[in-house]
């Protein structure tokens, strides 16, 4: 058993990795740059027109690793021709470049950053046109910059700070190594010689790619790899909407959703198990049929419709103004005593829980009914009756225990489904849970939050599935995993 659990948990790691890959690809297949809706970033992307000088936008992209390729980084193989054509297109050199391509070429040059340095140097030294050489020198001064490594670390140490300030100095220095189109030849020669020496000095370390460094660049210097390395340190990034750490936000919201789901689950089981047993005992009587039909209709009722009706008829208008229109607790709930707070919460979540309950209740009591029907005709139940046990003991103690196995194991799969499936209910009743948070973030294109929620709910489902299997073995001794 222990071996099995370890095996399953180990298997969860590649599965989770693949899930994150799929989620990541879905997010990046979408048109539009992630973060484009962030305040200011939209303007910044337009400002990218203005050339290499736009630092704010570049910094923004670097912070979120948006300058890197999504999955595979092949920029170590960047050819000189590609760099040249990007520069020419960005300057509209031939005069026939489409505006879209101009912006794209600028983005490319910004994103390539230091991978473009050798190509840029070649343009700088060999290109016949002076305006292009001048532009290449400007791009060089921004592309050869060293990244500040600890700018986004919360509490950097002294060594880290000093290493960053060294890098800053270096960046400031190379920033001046440019020349204008109308500069004299001597000024140009000076800049060119500086750059040649600079690149030659560092060529082995920074621009010479061995097989190993190619491979690590290919796989590791990408958005996906950076995201994963962040996940491993439990850093899901910052929510653009709330300017807060995503994980703690999700944790906060998850509390409400789990509270709702657990209450729902509890009621579902408390009602559906006795109901299922009852209708299995009185099977095929008119009462059973009526209950079955009724449950079937309940099952087909769209929950958002029921929620809207309840909201309109139980919370608004004078005769029915019984329950609150939404929220998880009253606004002034902070001042209440614990007991009063509990009452307040229960008063608030009555309607949402009712809406989330009835569908699952209908389905589960059907499962309970068939589960019991499967065992009620077996030999050992007949034996128990023959022993002279009372009907109640036979049904509840003998048949019930075996008949309920399938529905107990359903619990583990139901919980994540409830958490994930409550978007509409939380939306209608304005409960600040994970579902409405997801909806809100999707609309605001808060990518970090959406990814985090997708990954965490997937993880919950994975764990739920494992628990279901284990629970199965626990309650049914006939099942072993060894």
């Amino acid at each position, binding site marked *: 058993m222990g071996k099995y659990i370890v095996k399953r948990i180990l298997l969860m790691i*590649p*599965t989770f990795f*693949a*899930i994150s890959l*799929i*989620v990541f690809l*879905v*997010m990046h*297949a*979408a*048109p*539009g740059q992630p973060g484009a809706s962030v305040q200011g970033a939209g303007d910044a992307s337009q400002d990218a027109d203005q050339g290499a000088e736009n630092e704010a936008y570049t910094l923004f992209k670097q912070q979120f690793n948006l300058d890197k390729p999504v999955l595979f980084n092949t920029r170590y193989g960047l050819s000189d021709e590609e760099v040249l054509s990007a520069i020419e297109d960005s300057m509209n050199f031939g005069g026939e470049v489409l505006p879209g391509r101009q912006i794209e070429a600028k983005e490319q040059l910004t994103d390539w950053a230091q991978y473009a340095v050798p190509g840029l140097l070649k343009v700088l030294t060999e290109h016949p046109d002076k305006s292009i050489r001048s532009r290449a020198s400007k791009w060089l001064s921004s592309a050869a910059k060293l990244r500040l490594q600890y700018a986004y670390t919360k509490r950097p140490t002294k060594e880290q700070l000093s290493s960053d300030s060294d890098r800053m100095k270096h960046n400031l220095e190379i920033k001046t190594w440019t020349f204008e189109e109308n500069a004299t030849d001597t000024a140009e020669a000076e800049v060119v010689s500086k750059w040649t020496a600079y690149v030659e000095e560092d060529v082995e370390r920074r621009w010479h790619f061995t097989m190993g460094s190619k491979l690590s660049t290919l796989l590791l210097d990408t958005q996906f790899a950076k995201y994963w390395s962040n996940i491993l340190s439990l850093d899901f990034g910052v929510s653009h909407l709330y300017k807060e750490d995503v994980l703690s936000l999700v944790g906060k919201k998850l509390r409400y959703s789990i509270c709702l789901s657990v209450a729902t689950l509890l009621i579902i089981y408390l009602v559906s198990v006795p109901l299922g047993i009852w209708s299995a005992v009185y099977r095929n009587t008119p009462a059973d049929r009526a209950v079955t039909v009724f449950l*079937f*209709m309940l*099952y*087909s*009722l*769209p929950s*958002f*419709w029921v929620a*809207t*009706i309840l*909201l*309109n008829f139980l919370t*608004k208008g004078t005769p029915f103004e019984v329950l609150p229109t939404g929220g998880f607790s009253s606004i002034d709930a902070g001042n209440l005593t614990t007991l009063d707070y509990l009452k307040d919460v229960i008063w608030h979540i009555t309607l949402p829980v009712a809406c989330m309950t009835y569908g699952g209740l209908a389905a589960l009591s059907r499962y309970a009914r068939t589960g019991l029907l499967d065992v009620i005709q077996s030999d050992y139940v007949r034996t128990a009756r023959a022993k002279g046990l009372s009907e109640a003991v036979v049904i509840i103690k003998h048949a019930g225990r075996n008949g309920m196995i399938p529905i107990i194991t359903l619990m583990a799969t139901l919980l*994540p*489904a409830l*958490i*994930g*499936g409550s*978007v*509409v209910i939380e*939306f*209608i009743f304005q409960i600040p849970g994970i579902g409405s948070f*997801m*909806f809100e973030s*999707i*609309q605001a*294109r808060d990518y970090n939050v*959406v990814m985090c*929620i*997708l990954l965490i*709910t*997937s993880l919950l*489902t*994975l764990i739920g*599935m494992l628990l279901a299997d284990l629970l199965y073995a626990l309650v049914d001794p006939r099942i072993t995993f060894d």
Partner: protein
Amino acid sequence: MSEIQESAAAAAESTREKATQTYGDIVWGQFKKNRVAYASLWGLAALFTLAIFAPLLASSTPFIWTDETGTSYPWFTTLFDTQYFENGVDLFFNLVMVMGMPMLLLWWLWMRKLPAKMPRVRQRRARAKAIFSRGAGFFLAFFAGMVFTAVGTGDDSPNLLLRALDLGKLSIVLYVTCATMLALKMGSRSVLLAVLIGYIAGNVLHTTSSKYTVYSKVYWQNQEAIAAAEETGAEAPDAISAVFPIAPYSYRQQGFKPLEGPSGKHIMGISTNGSDVATRILYGTRISLTIGFIAVGIYVAIGIILGSIAGYFGGKVDLAIQRLIEIVMCIPSFFLILTVIALVGSASIFLIMAAIGFVRWTGVARLVRGEFLRLRNQDFVTSAQALGYPTSRIIFKHILPNALGPVLVAAAFGVASAILLESSLSFLGMGDASTASWGVTLREGYSTGAWHLVLIPGFAIFLTVLLLNLAGEGVRDAMDPKLRK
């Protein structure tokens, strides 16, 4: 003595009949015994009919329009007008409406040509005849009944038949003639009865419906003129005579008093932006059914292909596909669909269908895989392999038909849940707002609290989902040998 002989002969006949019964026949027989499920199948057929013939019931263009310049037939020209019916779904259903009858006729003629000696063929012909007579019944009753009814709403409509001939529009005449001919051939008296009822209802409506003539004023070509006339207080230009559908509105047409409750003119009231709710609900049937069936079609196809490959080949292929299933299953599908639709930005119903189809296939794949694992070692498969049939043939012709039962049940429930999913997306405002989806209308009800906008679309969703669930349950029970009656 002879009686005994007769009964013996009858028994022998019935056993022979039983021997030729296929599995499908047995299941169908069982299904028919379940009255609720059978009735819900009819209900679904009725929904489809409503969806197909929606323009006959509700359209802002008249069948016939006569004014000083002459007579025109705008209804026919707008059927395939992409300006009027913007949505591909509507155009598709209109095509089905127009081509349905001739297609049925062709199919039936083809079935008649098959040699009648083989019992199978005879059976199929009998079944085709049954389906056909009913299909013809639906088409005829609806088309004829509605046109009759509609003609009754004209200003000074003379006898309908004369009017229809006067149309010169071959389509209607052809249509009705085909249907009548076939219905007569089929001996389907119920069809004729339906037409008769339609005709009488039309005439009754006519006598009570002088108010309908008012609507000739909303004919789309004259709308601007009417508005101008109303401003100046002059008499609005009017047709000499016009024949409109019962509900002379289109689902995109606005301009009625917003949020007005149900009345004689608008039996289901008016929506927030001033369009007729009854028309929107009617056209919403098209959207819901299309979304349900096409999305499920996509994922059943994916599920069958992957599931059968996994189940048939086993080993590493199976392992890989199983992992894939597990991965997709773990991502909460509603979240994923919501994300995909939101990120793409403009949610068309085709995107919603595709999103549902590509996310929800795991259940079907697991079902098919299980069935294949069960079937692949049985004798009929081994013999097919020994005969040297290609693998694709063994998979699709020999094993798959035996594995389809559970898939059918899953598909029926799947259509229901896809319809629910689409309406909840629309309810959240993530759906295709340009369509008349029920979820969109319900959302208006949620935000305004108008009870007719809450109850009516919600009930439409509920009814459709219930019918699908009942039918699915019926198929499941019919396939369960333990419950056989």
